[in-house]
């Protein structure tokens, strides 16, 4: 059992043991596993024929086809491989926000989600990598399937603090460039960035054939805007302060914010990206279990 009491307690580990993260798309792993691989090897499940070329292993020649056509064809089979999961964790200043009713900040909540996913992936003997960023990538943990790798990931998560402003789109582009093998990319962020550039970053990942999961971390205050008195809002990530009468603008704020969330969700849907909302006042275990169960 990993020793990471501040992010995951033993009870949580115990409950997460029954879940698994299966890739929906084909992924390129390093070892044989339970996930479908684009590499056609020699397995039990037939995939297709291809014409023989010098250097091919003659053991896979299909003699029945040779007998009918007098040509050499090789039998190709589907190969199952292991999952390589990349988790991109937003550690910008806005993620450090903690509302009036939540017990933890968005970053803490996101770190727990990352730890739980890392545990699930490694527990099913797949590979897990981690990148934390704000306006640039701050740490990069290469994927590994070694069970002891969880400890490395948790240690990085423990040391992660809210940093500077968000610049999510360049990070996504950089990640798309760095991740050569197709895998699952989980982006955990509040996505407080321009939606158009953000969409381009997600599209870049999808272009690289990665399966992308967007985990949108929100504080309930950011949705409900529950302030009454005159309030001076000091902007995080360098935004200028503004004095406002919350009661007068609450409705409009909620409308604007919900529109943004709907647009993000729609963008994800258009890119075949799973959109998973994470609210910091809700049970992480429940959200993850529902989501993982929905993936089958």
């Amino acid at each position, binding site marked *: 059992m990993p020793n990471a009491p501040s992010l995951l307690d033993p009870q949580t580990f115990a409950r997460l043991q029954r879940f698994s993260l299966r890739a929906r798309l084909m992924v390129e792993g390093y070892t044989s596993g339970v996930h479908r691989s684009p590499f056609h090897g020699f397995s039990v499940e037939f995939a297709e024929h291809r014409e023989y070329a010098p250097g091919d292993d003659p053991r896979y020649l299909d003699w029945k086809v040779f007998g009918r056509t007098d040509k050499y064809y090789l039998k190709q089979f589907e190969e199952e491989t292991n999952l390589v999961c990349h988790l991109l964790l937003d550690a910008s200043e*806005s993620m450090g926000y903690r509302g009036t009713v939540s017990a933890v900040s*968005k970053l803490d909540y996101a770190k727990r989600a990352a730890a739980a996913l890392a545990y699930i992936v490694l527990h099913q003997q797949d590979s897990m990598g981690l990148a934390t960023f704000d306006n640039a990538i701050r740490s990069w943990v290469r994927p590994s399937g070694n069970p002891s790798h969880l400890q490395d990931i948790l240690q990085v998560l423990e040391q992660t603090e809210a940093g500077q402003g968000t610049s999510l789109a360049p990070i996504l582009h950089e990640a798309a460039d760095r991740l050569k093998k197709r895998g699952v990319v989980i982006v955990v962020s509040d996505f407080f960035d321009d939606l158009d550039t953000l969409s381009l970053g997600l599209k870049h990942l999808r272009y690289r054939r990665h399966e992308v999961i967007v985990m949108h971390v929100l504080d309930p205050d950011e949705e409900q805007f529950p302030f009454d008195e005159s*309030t001076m*809002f000091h*902007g995080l990530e360098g*935004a200028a302060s503004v004095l406002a009468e919350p009661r007068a*603008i609450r409705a409009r*704020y909620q*409308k604007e914010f*919900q529109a943004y969330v709907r647009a993000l969700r729609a963008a994800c849907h258009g890119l075949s990206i799973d959109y998973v909302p994470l609210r910091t006042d809700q049970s992480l275990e429940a959200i993850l279990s529902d989501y993982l169960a929905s993936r089958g």
Partner: protein
Amino acid sequence: MVLLAFGWTNPLMLGWLAAAALPLLVHLLRRRRYREVSWAAMRWLRAAIEHETRRVRLEQWGLLALRTLFIVLVVLAAAGPRLQSATAIGGAGDNCLRLLVIDGSYSMGYRWDDQTLFGRAKSLAQRMVREGGLGDAYMLVLMAERPVVAVDRPSKDRLLLAKRIEELSLSESEASLPATLLKSSELLESADRDGSRFSRAEVIIVSDLQAKTWSPAAESRDELRHRFERLAAKTSVRVINVGVASAENIAVSQFKTEDPLTIVGRPAALQATLENFGSQLHRQAVELWADGRQVGQQAVEIPARGSALVEFPRLFDEEREHRLEIRAPGDRLEIDNRRFLIVSPRKQVRVLCVDGRPSGRPYQGAADYLALGLAPSAKRELDLLRVETVGENGLIDRDLRDYDCLFLCNVSHFTAGQAQRLDSYLRDGGSIVFFLGEHVDPERYHDVLGVAGESKPGPGGGAGLRLLPARLERLVSGQSSQINPLGFRHPMLKAWRGREEEGFAKIPVWKYYRLKVSEAGPARKVLALDNGDPLLVEQNVHRGRVLLVATSADPGWSALPLVPHFVPLVRSMALWCAAGAAPGRTGQVGQPFDVFLAAHGGQRVQLPDGRVQMIRPDAGSARIATQSGMYTVLGQATTGNKHFAINVDTAESDLAKVDESRLRAMAPGVAFNENDGVGDAGSASAALARHNQSLRLDTVLLFVALAVALGETFCAWRFGHSRRKASIVP
């Protein structure tokens, strides 16, 4: 085209318009108080602010405007804006000077419908001032025994006038209508001299038209008529009646001890007289209170327009002041339902007999029989009367204030110094009895002591003393006369009433001074001789009494000292004198009360209403008692407190109204309200209001303010409600 004049009833109230800035100040102050929050989702917050700012600002300014408008409207309404037609004010220069006279006599304290007539009169005056013309000015006088001028110059300041009217207080005395009319004339003349220009002047008298005030004695009627005419020549005079047609009232008109002197250990009769001024028989409960607690109660029937005497027997066992009070509660005029009395019972009366012809032999001196008659008991120290006999020197070497009564027997003459001492003694409440004799020098008596009722003092009476109640005209002898008790009418002779057969009238007197009592003087005969000559004459001097006996105190001039009647007679004289002329420590509203204080030095006096005043009797002006009740002279720890009682004059308690025909004859040209009863107040005021024909805008403004307040409430609710409704959108 109708010309309109605009004005304010209370222009000073407009100063409160500054309060209209309050909502703005509150708004600005609120903006300076806010909480601070670190916030991540600034993009959407900014978007919301940019989108909502205009609407929110409009809402806030709208609410601010409504709140400000509300304050402005209320202030304007309080200032009393009025619109008056030019036809009503008779042109631009039309204005009226009104002199309001409010009857302050205590009959105006009659309560009707939970309000006194005085309160009604004040309300009516307030209404007149409020509803009067914009250019009208007012003066204010309280009709009292001495008229009180509350506003002595024409004033248009409605606030000041309202304050002055409110400050008027009911007096506890009667009111003098002639003095008030004279004062009113003087005020109007004074206003005219000061250059005040008014198109007309009006005197409005608000009164209950009580007969006592409005129907003076015959000798004053001409004067009153003259004063009404003088006033009516310059102004129009209007009398508004706020009285009640048939008012019932019961008053305690008298409260006294039956005997002038109350003795410790002897029962005393406390007598209260109740008068019914109404037209119905009343059964009245009467309470006796002593030193702050109720000690007796009786019920008495008082016939209509009659009186009843209630007697409470009471034994006083201490030689100290007792504060007594009679209460007859229950009617609508409360002020005359109580009467107060201070009783100071005595253990002993000290008498000093001055013998003008002392003798070493028994019963040869001029005062020997008298001293025996005054204290006949063998145990003289136990006797009520403690008698000392001295020679003429005693007038010099004795402190006369130690004695309640002096008997001067056959004293030949008095020096001016002795006369002054006697005068001071009388001022202190002592009393003197003169017995004459052969040594008496009548001329020197007249010259030094002075004779009551005579204008010219004698050569020795330069100080203007009037101590003798009668002139010693000449010595009469050689004929025997008998005593005429004059029906024993004098209280001193009360013991003989009904017992004439016992021979009092047969006592012979063969030598005496013929006394000449001045008709103009205050002296009265107590006893006379059968030939009509006075034998015993009495007059009150200062706070004491002076009795003059025309014959001697020894048997040389009459048989009086030898008969049994002599003892009770001289003892009655002594007790009568010891009681003094002053009515105990009891006075009347309107009289100075300095007489109850020590002659010198300041003293603190607690008034019936609880206030304490420092009174200096030697400061010049006498202090007039304006309240009835118990007054307490606060003394030092060693001397203790002294009390005196002040009662109202119940002449004002008869609420009968003046005969209308007599009133009209006495005050020609004066407009009287025809209708009787308290309803008049409203109709009179309404008549004035019609006369002024001014449109009051304050009510309209208040309604608009109410609408604004409701609008503000609705808008605040609407704005808040829409936000709350929107805030539950998921």
